[in-house]
C-alpha cells in the first residue's frame, strides 16, 4: 500500500525532505521503520516517536495505510 510519511524538525534534516510517499507491504509500524532506517542511516541516532493517523503509536501497531509522521521531541511554548 502507498503510505504518506511526514518528517519534522531534526528528522526532516536527516531525510532532507518534509514528506514522501512510499509503497510499503502490509505489516507493523516496526516494518516500516526498518525500511526507513535502511534508507536514512542517520535515523537510528535520532530520538523520535511515530504517529499514525495523528495518534502516537507503538512499534507493534498494524499499519493501516493512514498517514505516518516521525516526530522528534516536542518543544512548544
Amino acid at each position, binding site marked *: 500500500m502507498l503510505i504518506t510519511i511526514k518528517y519534522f524538525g531534526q528528522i526532516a534534516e536527516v531525510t532532507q525532505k518534509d514528506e514522501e510517499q512510499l509503497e510499503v507491504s502490509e505489516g507493523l509500524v516496526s516494518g516500516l521503520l526498518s525500511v526507513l532506517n535502511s534508507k536514512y542511516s542517520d535515523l537510528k541516532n535520532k530520538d523520535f516517536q511515530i504517529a499514525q493517523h495523528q495518534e502516537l503509536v507503538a512499534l507493534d501497531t498494524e499499519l493501516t495505510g493512514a498517514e505516518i509522521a516521525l516526530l522528534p521531541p*516536542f518543544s512548544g511554548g
Partner: protein
Amino acid sequence: MKDKKPMKSVFKEGAIPSEFIGNSIYKHQTKTNIGAHNIFLGQVRADEIDGKTVAAIEYTAYEDMANQKFHEIRESAFEKFDLTCMHIYHSLGTVKSGEICLFVFVSSPRRKVVFKALEYIVEAIKADVPVFGKEIFEDESHQWKVNS
C-alpha cells in the same frame, strides 16, 4: 455558559503582539459573570549556549495533529475546571528573543480555578502537542530546542 467553539487553529504566524493580548482582555469586559482571568505568556529566552546567544526560535508543527491535541486539551480543561472560557495561541515561524510565542488565557467566576487550570493547560501543551522549536543563534547556526 461555556463558549465551546468548533475546532479552530491556534497557530499564528510570527510573534504574538502585546496589542493582540491587550485586545483579548478588553473583549472579555462584556462577559460579566467572569470574576478572574489568568494569563500565561511564553517568551523566547536569549539562552547562551557554548558562548553563542539564541536570537530567535523558528517554530514548525505537525499542524493537523497539533490542532487536534489543542482541541483535546481544551475539552479536558473544560471538563476538569469550572471555566467560562479559554483561549490558546501559539506562534509558527520565527519569533525573536524577547517576543511572545505562547498565549494562554483562562477565565472563570472564581480565582482558585484559574490558577489550577492554567498550569494544567500549559503543562499539557508542552507535553502533548507536536510543535518543534529550532533555536537560531546570532551567527545563524542552530540547534533543536528541548523542553525541560
